[in-house]
Structure formats: structure tokens, C-alpha cells
């Protein structure tokens, strides 16, 4: 087994309890879902075990219905005070 395979296996073989404690200690991840992005498709890519660490950053003009729908799906959402969708697209 190559060294890289050994370290990768060590990563995959971590126990679940140890993993949960480890995840709890990690900093929150602020995911910038700005611009014309398919939120649902993007969020499907978040590994389930890190779901609770994710805080979704949206633009100041993200429709309230979308934010409510994300919150209904138990996502943490923070709305930007300044950045609009148009500004986000320009900065992409």
C-alpha cells in the first residue's frame, strides 16, 4: 500500500463517536451562495455529516420565500446587509 493510501484509509476508518466530537469542535462554514445559483442543487452537495456546520450566506435581495424555504429545511441562513444579487454576479 502506498503511503498516500495508508493516510487516506486512516481518514476513512475514523470511528463515528470520535468523528461527531471532532465535527462539533470545528468552526462554522459560511457558504456563499450568491448570484443566480440553484440553491437546492448546491445544497445537495453538502456532506450530511457537516450539514449542521453550514451557514448559508444569501444576498440582501434574496426572496424571503426562498429564505423561509431554506429555514424550513433546517438550514441556517444569514442574509447579507449590503451585497445584492447584481453585485454578486459582477464579482463572480
Amino acid at each position, binding site marked *: 500500500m502506498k503511503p498516500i*493510501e495508508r*493516510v487516506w484509509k486512516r481518514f476513512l476508518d475514523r470511528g463515528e463517536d470520535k468523528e461527531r466530537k471532532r465535527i462539533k469542535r470545528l468552526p462554522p462554514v459560511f*457558504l456563499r451562495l450568491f448570484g443566480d445559483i440553484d440553491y437546492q442543487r*448546491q445544497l445537495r452537495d*453538502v456532506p450530511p455529516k457537516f450539514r449542521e456546520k453550514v451557514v448559508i450566506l444569501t444576498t440582501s435581495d434574496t426572496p424571503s420565500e426562498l429564505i423561509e424555504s431554506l429555514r424550513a429545511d433546517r438550514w441556517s441562513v444569514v442574509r447579507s446587509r449590503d451585497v445584492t444579487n447584481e453585485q454578486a454576479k459582477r464579482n*463572480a
Partner: protein
Amino acid sequence: MRDAKEQNHAYLFSLSSGFQRHVGMFYSMFEGMRQRYPNQDAYYFILPETHAGVSLGSHKELRTENIMDFLCRGFPNETALIMRTSMPFFETTLSQKGNLGTTPEGIPLGGMEFFLTLLDTYELYKDEGRIFAPAMIGITLPMLTRSTPSLVDFYRRSHELPSSVLDSLDFAPALEVTSSADKLARRIGTFQAAMKVLAITEQDIRNLFSRTQFEFGIPEAFGFEDSNTPII
């Protein structure tokens, strides 16, 4: 930032869309690096789609003799950034596209919010006769990407990573509108324009990065005792 501070987090992790499938990998790298280099102001990632010339050995070649080359290959960015909540956070108007002008081809300069905030902060400190030099770790991850099929092919051909690793990376299609070539042109123009506007010299850039170190991600992240052990 306000949210993270309110919840008493020492660090926050800022991530661009498209990389969320790799969040576990980023966290692992952070944990490994934090053991080796504790209490840093920022741990940021050097990625093929964000930086120029990223390879398995590129972290060893980062020198500040050629400032533009150094910046293109190692500038701190917010694509995947874990930073102390006490750090200045993206608070500069320079990053707004167009405030620093445009390239001859008409590409508006700007973006790079974290880097430009660091430059802005450096300039403020300089006015007070102090040097702003945050302790940072730039972590090179040549295998993480949102797109770039040629890069995926490169790793498949080179056999540097086992197939199980490649499969787990599960490369996603590109989401960004701006091409990599345009981005590189924009970055070089932005570095030059920002340095001019803020009267930042090449020596200032060296000072700013005097406490920044560069590492290759994988061995440290998995507790490899000897980081010099060849992984190939």
C-alpha cells in the same frame, strides 16, 4: 463575521459555492495544519482554479523575489478560508469591481476581498508607523477543483492518487461565469492597481507576508509524522 463572533467562535470558515462537497477535506486539512501551526490568524487554501501554477511541489517554490509571480501563486483568498474572527473581514471598497479600473481588454479589476482587505489594513498600519503581518498558512491542494477536466485527467494519468481518492473527490462542473484566463489577467491588474492606489511597495508585500508559510496539504492533515516522506 458578526454571526460567528456572536456565537464566540475563534475561527470561521468562508467557502465559495461549488466547493461544498469538499468541506470534509478542507476541515481535515485545517485540523492537521492547526496541530502543526497553532494559533494562526488564517489558514487559506491554494487551489488550481484560484491560483497559477499549482502542483504537488509548488508550495516549495514560493519565493518573494518576483512579487507578481508570488502573488499569482500564493495570494490569500476567500475561496476556502479559515480565519480568526478578530481579523479584518472583507471591509474595503477596493474589491468592488471597477473601483480599481479595468484591464486594456475591459475586464473590471477588483474581487479578491480578503487580499485587498489585508493590503488596506497594511496601509492603515503603515500610516501609524506599524507593520501588519498576520500569521498565515497557505495550504496547497492541487487535487481539489470545481471543474478543469484536464486536471482530473492529469491525476488519472499520473497515478499520483489512488482511484478511491479520485472517486471520492467527485469533481463537479464549473459554476463560475468568468474564465480562468480572464481571472488571471484581472488578478495581475488588480495586484498592480491596488499597490499603486495604496502606495504599497514590493518590500511592503514582503513585510505583509513575512509571517506566512506555505505547506502541502495531505501529509500534515492526516497526522503524517514525517512531512518529507514522499507520497508518490
